[in-house]
């Protein structure tokens, strides 16, 4: 067990060292999320000043922007961490060591979680003085919300990672775009009820929609709807297991095809 943790820790250290070495990683963790907060806050102010009535508009939109970025970070960093190794041509170096696929996956997930937390912290710090929005007003429900978002982020990240293992680094677009594929149906900034009925069915199958519906319920009533949370958690457990199985399968097939050393 110690050996597993040590190797996961070593790889996590490596990816976090990269944050300090690569300015684009700082942009990912801090700059773009802050731009997102600013855009949604200004849009909200405009909507309010134009006379539209959206209850708790700042909390709903800025809160959603913050939690969306938590999910986004977790999702992108799992697969982008692997892309880092593909681009650095260090895949062979890493996998010729005692590092297992499971340990590698765990490290990329740890990196995603750490960066998601950093993003959450940065956005919360900015939203509070600028827009008088305190994310912690969500209370203890913030913890299961964030955990579910990170978990679904891992799931999509692992799916993107398995695509890259199968098809190579030229499919990097998957790593960046996959979270945005589910965004329109995830009820991030609008309730599920505004979606056409067939899309509402799809939204129900996405843990994100339950988290964001739950967030809006907490903002409106102060009460966490346990059903939303339970469904999101159950879906996450199933999807994460399926994603892990997909990664394992694609790595195994890459070993059989001999494509791992040729990944570019």
């Amino acid at each position, binding site marked *: 067990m110690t050996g597993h943790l040590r190797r996961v820790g070593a790889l996590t*250290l*490596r990816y976090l060292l990269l944050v300090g070495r690569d300015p684009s990683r700082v942009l990912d963790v801090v700059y773009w999320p802050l731009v997102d907060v600013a855009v949604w806050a200004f849009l909200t102010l405009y909507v309010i000043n134009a006379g539209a009535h959206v209850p708790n508009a700042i909390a709903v939109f800025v809160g959603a922007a913050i939690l969306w970025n938590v999910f986004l970070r977790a999702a992108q960093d799992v697969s982008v961490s692997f892309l880092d190794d593909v681009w*650095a041509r260090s895949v*062979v170096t890493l996998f010729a060591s005692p590092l297992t696929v499971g340990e590698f996956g765990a490290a990329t997930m740890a990196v995603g979680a750490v960066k998601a937390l950093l993003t959450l912290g940065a956005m919360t710090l900015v939203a509070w003085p600028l827009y008088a929005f305190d994310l912690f007003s969500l209370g203890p429900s913030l913890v299961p919300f964030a955990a579910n978002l990170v978990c679904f982020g891992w799931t999509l990240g692992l799916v993107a990672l398995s695509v890259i293992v199968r098809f190579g680094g030229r499919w990097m677009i998957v790593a960046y775009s996959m979270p945005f594929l589910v965004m329109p149906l995830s009820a991030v900034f609008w309730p599920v009820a505004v979606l056409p009925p067939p899309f509402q069915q799809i939204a129900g199958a996405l843990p994100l929609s339950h988290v964001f519906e739950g967030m809006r319920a907490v903002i409106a009533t102060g009460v966490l709807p346990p059903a939303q949370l339970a469904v999101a958690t159950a879906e996450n457990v199933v999807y994460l297991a399926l994603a892990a199985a997909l990664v394992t399968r694609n790595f*195994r097939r890459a070993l059989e*095809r*001999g494509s791992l050393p040729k990944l570019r």
Partner: protein
Amino acid sequence: MAGHDASCVLSRGGAEAEAVPTTSRRDSTASAPWTPSAPHARRAGLPPSPDTLAVDVRDLAKRFAHTTALESATFHVRAGEVLGLLGPNGAGKTTTLHILLGIVRPSAGSVRIFGRDPHDGTKQALRRVGFASPEALMDWRLTVAENLRVYAALYGVSRTAIERTVGALELGELLCKRFGDLSLGQQTRAGVARALLHEPDLLVLDEPTSSLDPDVAEKTRRVLQEIRRTRGLSMLYTSHNMAEVELMCDRVAFLHRGRVVADGTPLEVSRQVLGTASLDAAAMEEVFLKLAREGLG
């Protein structure tokens, strides 16, 4: 610390852990003697058991979608022995190494490293293996020191191990440089250092000196020979430099079209192929050309 980037610190241990140029306190270890750590020191000097096989490859085959890289390769490396795996481009050398390292799965046959299957899912066998190749790189954005820290943590070795390896390979002046800023030769040296960090029992080297100038190549060979002398290290070595092969290798196995067509000491293979009783680099070159062009008939 003055003048040094924070990334040059080999661990969080502060000044003591700071990388220093080989001209200062690292000098005592810089220019050669490889000082093994305690467990290996106990082993040092002991002749390896002739019964122990560091590498045991039997009937190894690998078929890709449109090509066959290995037909049926059989060879072994005894503990403490240096085996040169030779052959022309496309003979299956790199595929063989990749199978040994657990990153390509064989289609048939078996591989064992000190009796363990590197494909058993636990990767236990690879804990005793170090691998260096100009193709196996480290992260280009991190400094050499940062990269070595990461790999030391991956193998669970101490800061002392990093310092010893850095000293032996005279890497002190490179520690603060980003890996991507190094010349090809410097990257190779850093790669060899990474492969030696955890004091492996088997070193797999894929053309380790192909990108080095003669001086650095000679120093690298000297370090490898020193490590081998003090630790009884086993090596599997690929190279196209026949002078190097003749110098470094106890035995050679020659791959041709996915099969081992000659296996023995360089002299034995030379006798077998050329029928001559003497051996030098030129003879090895001739052996290589003859086997690469004609096989063994």
